């Protein structure tokens, strides 16, 4: 398939050129021309006032579509670490429940591990079936045996949809599963719906650093596989009375060439690496003393984030250099950057200005940081931050 311009119809308005997110349309001889940068997103087709841009089938397009009707059921990969099932698994069961209902099919969880506690919980959170594979080789996470197990189960039971958490585990081994099964995988979906006409899974995900959203389809291959970040989907109700079936599966041929020698927990202040953090609460000279940073740590913890600092705060010795953001520190681009008592020197701004959202709190209404901020509050951080902590705590209890 290609996207082409019907020259006779093209009115040379150039609207499509501006609409293309990939800069793949040029004006040539006063007509629109689609270059090889085309990613087939069809954005131009919807904006063309003359209907001059169309899809054109090409030889080889008509793939022999596998018998998709052989596939049914919605599966959730239930992630465990040290025998404990992680929260994202239950969230995915919530999302999976809706999809299974819309498709008129069953919802199952797949649990791989050594010995896992509370397997029943998967049923109480909505799974009708749990495929359980207990094997010492699956106790710690290694990509190869996890993908081998998943591939083998999918080949045997043929689910139509598979969901996994977009965690360091899911994001690492699920691509191997998709590669091996010759099917599509869509990462970090923020919305999953069933298309009423085709029954396909509509997978919405952000691209270009969240600047645009794309709806992705996997129409001719099964299963349709998607990963979803933790805390994006809502859990269903926990119901003690739910009944389900636990199916023990034995997979004798799992192998691994990688080996986990040790697992190191980092619960201290450096638990969340600054550059990986989605939320950063950073403090500057306005924090006044090291106690101010204790307060920021508390706020960061409430938001599931990490603590950053300006050079001024590091030079004062209130916080260690590993927290420094800016030209001589780290460059970060979290989803949310909360700048507390940071005036916004250029050297600091270059390290954080690409954050999706910047919240600035400063008592100087002229502080340069405000020009980059999405939200700002003019006030003393030592009053505002405790207020935020208090209100966040109250809100999470209500």
């Amino acid at each position: 398939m290609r996207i082409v311009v019907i020259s006779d119809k093209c009115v040379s308005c150039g609207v499509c050129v501006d609409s293309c997110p990939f800069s793949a349309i040029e004006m040539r001889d006063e007509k629109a021309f689609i270059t090889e940068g085309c990613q087939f997103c069809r954005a131009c087709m919807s904006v063309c006032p003359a209907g001059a841009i169309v899809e054109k089938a090409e030889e080889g397009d008509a793939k022999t579509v596998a018998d998709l009707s052989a596939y049914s059921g919605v599966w959730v990969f239930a992630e465990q670490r040290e025998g404990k099932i992680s929260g994202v698994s239950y969230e995915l069961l919530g999302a999976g429940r809706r999809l299974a209902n819309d498709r008129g099919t069953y919802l199952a969880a797949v649990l791989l591990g050594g010995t896992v506690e509370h397997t029943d919980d998967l049923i109480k959170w909505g799974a009708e079936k749990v495929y359980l594979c207990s094997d010492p080789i699956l106790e710690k996470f290694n990509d190869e045996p996890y993908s081998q197990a998943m591939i083998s189960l999918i080949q045997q039971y043929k689910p139509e949809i598979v969901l996994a958490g977009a965690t360091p585990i899911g994001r690492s081994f699920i691509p191997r599963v998709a590669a091996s099964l010759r099917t599509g995988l869509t990462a970090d979906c923020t919305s999953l719906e069933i298309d009423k006409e085709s029954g396909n899974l509509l997978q919405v995900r952000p691209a270009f650093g969240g600047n645009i959203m794309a709806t992705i389809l996997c129409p001719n291959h099964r299963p349709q596989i998607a990963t979803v970040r933790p805390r994006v989907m809502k859990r269903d109700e926990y119901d003690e009375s739910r009944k389900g079936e636990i199916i023990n599966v034995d997979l004798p041929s799992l192998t691994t060439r990688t080996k986990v020698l040790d697992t190191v927990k980092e619960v201290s202040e450096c638990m969340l690496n600054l550059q990986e953090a989605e939320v950063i609460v950073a403090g500057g000279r306005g924090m006044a003393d090291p106690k101010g940073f204790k307060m920021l740590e508390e706020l960061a913890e409430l938001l599931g984030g990490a603590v950053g600092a300006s050079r001024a705060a590091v030079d004062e010795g209130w916080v260690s250099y590993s927290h420094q953001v800016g030209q001589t520190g780290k460059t970060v681009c979290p989803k949310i950057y909360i700048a507390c008592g940071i005036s916004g020197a250029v050297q600091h701004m270059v390290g954080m200005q690409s954050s999706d959202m910047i919240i600035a709190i400063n008592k100087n209404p002229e502080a340069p940081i405000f020009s980059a901020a999405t939200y700002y509050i003019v006030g003393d951080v030592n009053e505002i931050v405790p207020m935020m902590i208090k209100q966040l705590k109250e809100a999470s209890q209500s």
Partner: protein
Amino acid sequence: MRIIVFVKQVPDTAEVKINPETNTLVREGVPSIINPYDVHALEAALQIRDHKGGKVIVVTMGPPQAEDALREAVSMGADEVFLVSDRAFAGADTWATSYALYRAAEKIGFDIILCGKQAIDGDTAQVGPETAEFLNIPHISYIRKIEDVSESSIKVQRLMDDGYDIVESSLPLLMTVVKEINTPRLPSLKGKMAAKKAVINKLDLEALGGKEIEANVGLKGSPTQVRNIFAPKCQVQKRELSGTPEEQVAALVQDLRRIRCA
């Protein structure tokens, strides 16, 4: 030791802005850069070579202008560069991209493949692991430190949500790295001279298998399709909070909770 580094040329997403009137991306004047995570992968490869000897071979798939990314890699110290480029590869999703890179890697030969954990334009983190599966080699994602490398094995630290794992693997192996792993070197003057003269090896469809692989690359080989694209609903607008400090904080906390689902 032969070390392949996969890099991707990407638009600098920090510079990509939305035109609020048309809801489209403004890409004019947006510079192309090497995906930042891949620069750390290249640095990791150069460090292994500097200690153990061998060659660093940088491979990219993209349109002809992706050559610029390869020259930049040479300026940092890459020994050889390959451009995987063909009209037939256009429109590839991660499956079809990984397939082409697998064919390329097999042709070039390697002991280790390094790449960034993900590219900043697509953010999928899939091409590395998918390529490893096609190559039938192990892979380790999110590496924050390489502790030890020998001719036949490697020991690394893998970043996890709650800390890190120390993982050992046999070679050959594919690894994806996070930024924490190192601080990339700057191009040297000698490197910049070398970049100008660098030979760009080209791999097209024919070189990677021709007809035999045609159904597995480009748009035709891609299981996923982009149905449409649109601007995010809740575009973040600049917002001055009003009222008493308590009211301002309340409005902020409410929005924060909405965004974070806290």
